[in-house]
């Protein structure tokens, strides 16, 4: 079974600065998806960014980018120019692509605090 580990329960960053959230995962599969979801206090899970394992290029969405290291099974999220609205729980998630499980496997989350 796949596992997802987020080793940082909480991170704090000054507004406008850059922060990196860590995620590692364990799998025997070669083809899969990785996601970062944001969960603000309103509780809705919002997709931030997605990475396909077969793509070497790191995904980027505006101020959000990932550092995907397939061999190391690492998938970190970098948030540039942090804004107050970025404050939330961030969950890393894994999903099999080729005939694997339907459900997402989540990490325990990182609570991101933005200091004004």
């Amino acid at each position, binding site marked *: 079974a796949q596992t997802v580990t987020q080793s940082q329960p909480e991170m704090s960053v000054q507004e406008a600065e850059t922060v990196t959230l860590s995620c590692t995962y364990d799998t025997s599969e070669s083809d899969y*998806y990785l996601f970062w979801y944001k969960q603000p206090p309103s*509780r809705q899970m919002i*997709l931030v960014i*997605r990475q396909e394992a077969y793509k070497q290029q790191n995904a980027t969405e505006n101020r959000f980018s990932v550092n995907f290291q397939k061999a190391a099974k690492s998938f970190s999220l970098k948030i540039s120019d942090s804004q107050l609205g970025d404050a939330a729980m961030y*969950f890393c*998630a894994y999903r099999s692509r080729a005939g694997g499980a339907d459900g997402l496997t989540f990490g*325990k989350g990182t609570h991101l605090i933005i200091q004004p």
Partner: protein
Amino acid sequence: EPEVTQTPSHQVTQMGQEVILRCVPISNHLYFYWYRQILGQKVEFLVSFYNNEISEKSEIFDDQFSVERPDGSNFTLKIRSTKLEDSAMYFCASSGDRINQPQHFGDGTRLSIL
């Protein structure tokens, strides 16, 4: 932008009672999911549903749970004989396909068992 909607936002139920959580997935989506998040813990997959039948379920999803798509728009999670440990946030999600499209989540239903 289309959204997954869940009702109610908060449900309080006496232990032992049955509860039905409701979800309206995005209209052209075909795959539906339920997840659970116990307070302070990670989100856990419960079940996926496609073509009017369960596609996959986790070991959490035992005989106490059932899912149904009673009409063309709603997707429900029924919990029979609720227990205190069923208290959690329950999220519904939907996706356009199983592989290539991401799952979109609703706002969740907070279930409190007294």
